[in-house]
């Protein structure tokens, strides 16, 4: 390997390499990165959903769930919204005030899925939520490739709803520096 170690030093002394290496890669404008930096804001979330595709949004949502842990938020995403990719309903609104688009079938609000102070239950709930978001991401990718996929009764059509207590626990744990899982 010494041959390439020596070569490495020579490579970096090349004037063109020096000039190129002085350039900085563009910062990503993906929403998730901004979410991470700012710990999440509902208005920014809505702004993003309005102008970007659902795939990136879902990744952003997953990262937000994993990292930012904003409390009392819920995500209601219909299969059709995902297919259209431009009308994700009820994004980033507090769970108590979720409005369902009139043409959507009524959202199924789950009961609080964890008891306050129940870390194990919160773990399970969060894991399930992330699994559903990621599987939904995959389902939407499939749907975008195959528009004959009309199985609106599948599990992935159900809205995702998480109790405020789950978010509060998650946020508290992140503040304490502990892992979300």
């Amino acid at each position: 390997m010494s041959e390439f170690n020596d070569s490495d030093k020579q490579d970096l002394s090349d004037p063109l390499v020096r000039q190129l290496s002085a350039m900085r890669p563009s910062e990503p404008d993906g929403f998730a990165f901004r979410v991470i930096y700012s710990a999440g804001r509902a208005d920014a979330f809505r702004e993003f959903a309005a102008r970007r595709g659902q795939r990136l949004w879902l990744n952003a949502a997953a990262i937000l769930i994993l990292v930012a842990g904003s409390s009392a938020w819920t995500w209601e995403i219909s299969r059709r919204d995902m297919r259209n990719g431009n009308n994700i309903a009820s994004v980033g609104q507090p769970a108590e005030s979720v409005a369902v688009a009139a043409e959507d079938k009524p959202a199924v609000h789950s009961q609080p899925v964890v008891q306050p102070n129940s870390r194990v239950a919160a773990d399970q709930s969060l894991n399930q939520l992330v699994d559903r978001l990621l599987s939904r991401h995959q389902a939407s990718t499939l749907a975008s490739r195959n528009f004959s996929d009309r199985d609106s009764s599948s599990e992935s059509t159900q809205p995702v709803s998480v109790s405020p207590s789950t978010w509060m626990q998650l946020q508290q744990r992140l503040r304490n520096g502990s892992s979300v899982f």
Partner: protein
Amino acid sequence: MSECNPDLFLATVRDHSARLVLFARQRCEIPEDVVQEAFVRLFSERPAPSEPVSWLYRVVRNLALNASRSRQRRAGHETGASVPKLWFQADLADSIDAKTATEALQLLPADQRETIVLRIWCDHSFQQIAELTETSPATAHRRFHAGLETLRTKMGVVTFERTFE
């Protein structure tokens, strides 16, 4: 069970996201999606990778290649091109402007472009590049210099300052 430390995770996002996006851009047209997906997987990975940055580069490359293949399969059904974007921050202090560099890099074969990006902006050694791209260090070295010479020609960079041959 080893877990992903949130603080370490955030630091990794902050320090490596731009470089990873540039790297992913060499293989697909949705680099930010790919990098985000990789970060999601990193956070969920159990046990947490012992070398998360190396792990990220490997996952990003695989995801980018998959995305590129998927796009090629769908190419007949889609319209519209990706939005042109500069790969580098515009900076008047740079002796090479971002537009010129982006355009010149885009002319290179993907293997050479990927190697140059890893070497110059991602601080990879030729050994690391070889492991990541599943080739030999000698091939990585050859790709780097072939790409560099093409860049030199395309960008009209004077070579008299070169200190070695």
